[in-house]
């Protein structure tokens, strides 16, 4: 079909606006509003491309120089979830993930296999990401779409199971969190928490959240974190003072600008997401269900913040000492709250426990994100992001280190 090929060849910055426009019209938006939404997404996509260019262009050579000087094999760049989300939405699976995700939710609601009505369309990118990696790995688009659908279904079940503790812990009645990254750590956290319960002394330890926030606050400020890491890497790479300072400011820029670009994608998706929400609510009027939201509503809690602050330096340390890891953590150091925010209610806000469980999750995650690096890079290139030839590979923690994504990817290879 030459028409489809023509559309795919347009690239994500043109294809996504078209898709959003069509979807907006389908959900009953006015043409002008749908068009504006589409163009906003296209602009966000171009912006993310620029920032990824800045990241790989300046951090890449520094990472390589560091590898040459010290033999620390951290040559896979962590581009962070904003880039991963853009790669996911720009993939072939991303083009259909919103209708597919909604369909899975509708079918599960109708068959009463879920109680969650997931109105957080933005986070469908997690499902698309799994699908995109599966498609890259197997070369089969249908397998990618199937993996995305299965991912969506599993996340809905996890949201159902965790709804009660989350509602109590965060004080959000009627809400569940079908979040592709946060919920994926629940199956790890439950057995580990049960294990800690059996260890005398250790089970009684807790940490003071206020003190942690006071002492480690700098790790919660992405811009300052970027600056510090940039300077540290410049020194490790043996750069001159000038080059080191330039790298520091460039990395501060990446940390600050990347989320701003993603905000444009969010803004563009918003009208469509609201229209879909209204449609679903009308369709299921009078039914009791949990409304599925972004786990961003949970990450402000002191337990999540304190855990994440501790895990930032811990992640950097683990990256150096875990054998086999090649990921240089960067963009997603700011994403750690999302890794831990659904662990916190399971351990009832005990920061010591969520740090322990988070360390296990991140150790395993570093190896997973290393192992998917070539697929992650291929997906980025397929999305027409400018990854300089011969440069370091890219990966991420969200969702390159997502255990559910990884498991689904391995399962999909069975169908090859």
């Amino acid at each position: 079909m030459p028409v489809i090929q023509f559309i795919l060849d347009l690239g994500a910055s043109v294809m996504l606006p078209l898709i959003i426009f069509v979807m907006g019209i389908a959900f009953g938006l006015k043409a002008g509003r749908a068009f504006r939404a589409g163009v906003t997404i296209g602009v966000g996509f171009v912006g993310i491309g620029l920032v990824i260019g800045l990241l790989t262009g300046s951090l890449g050579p520094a990472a390589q120089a560091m590898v040459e000087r010290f033999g620390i094999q951290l040559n896979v760049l962590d581009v962070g979830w904003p880039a991963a989300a853009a790669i996911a939405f720009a993939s072939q699976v991303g083009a259909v993930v919103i209708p597919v995700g909604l369909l899975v939710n509708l079918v599960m609601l109708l068959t009463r296999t879920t109680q969650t009505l997931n109105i957080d369309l933005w986070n469908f990118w997690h499902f698309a990401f799994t699908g995109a990696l599966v498609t890259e790995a197997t070369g089969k688009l249908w397998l990618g779409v199937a993996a995305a659908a299965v991912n969506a279904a599993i996340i809905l079940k996890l949201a159902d199971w965790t709804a009660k503790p989350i509602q109590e812990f965060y004080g959000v009645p009627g809400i569940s969190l079908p979040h592709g990254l946060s919920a994926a750590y629940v199956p790890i956290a439950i057995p580990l928490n049960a294990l800690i319960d059996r260890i005398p002394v250790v089970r009684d330890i807790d940490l003071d959240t206020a003190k942690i926030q006071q002492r480690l606050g700098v790790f919660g400020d992405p811009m300052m974190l970027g600056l510090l890491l940039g300077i540290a890497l410049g020194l490790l790479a043996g750069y001159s003072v000038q080059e080191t300072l330039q790298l520091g400011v460039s990395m501060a820029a990446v940390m600050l600008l990347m989320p701003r670009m993603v905000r444009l994608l969010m803004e563009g998706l918003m009208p469509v997401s609201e229209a879909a929400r209204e449609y679903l609510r009308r369709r299921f009027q009078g039914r009791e269900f949990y409304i599925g939201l972004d786990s961003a509503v949970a990450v402000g809690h002191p337990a999540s913040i304190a855990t994440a602050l501790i895990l930032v330096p811990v992640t950097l340390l683990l990256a150096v000492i875990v054998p086999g890891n090649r990921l240089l953590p960067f963009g997603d150091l700011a994403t750690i709250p999302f890794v831990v925010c659904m662990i916190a209610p399971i351990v009832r806000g005990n920061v010591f426990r969520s740090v322990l469980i988070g360390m296990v999750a991140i150790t395993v995650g570093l190896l997973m994100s290393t192992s998917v690096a070539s697929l992650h890079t291929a997906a980025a290139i397929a999305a027409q992001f400018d990854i300089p030839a011969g440069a370091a590979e890219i990966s991420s923690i969200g969702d390159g280190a997502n255990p559910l994504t990884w498991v689904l990817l391995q399962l999909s290879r069975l169908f090859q």
Partner: protein
Amino acid sequence: MNRKRVVVACGTGIATSTVVAEKVAEACRREGIDVDIIQCKATEVATHAPGASLVVATTTIATPVSVPVINAIGFLTGVGEEELSRRIIEALKD
């Protein structure tokens, strides 16, 4: 009339706060209230709150702030949206 400042916060300062910021802006436009909206992370509220009239958040604000805080999860779920808009407008009017 004075320009009022509203701080809109969520976990990331990107995701759900974008939705809420739009809603607050829309409600204020309707009522003819001139507002300046600052969108930020929950951890940054303490920095932005001085000088603001109101904090609207979708997540827990851990730090004590001197201005009223309104929880805006209703804008995300669509439950009680009008009531929420009304409370925000009232808080800004006096």
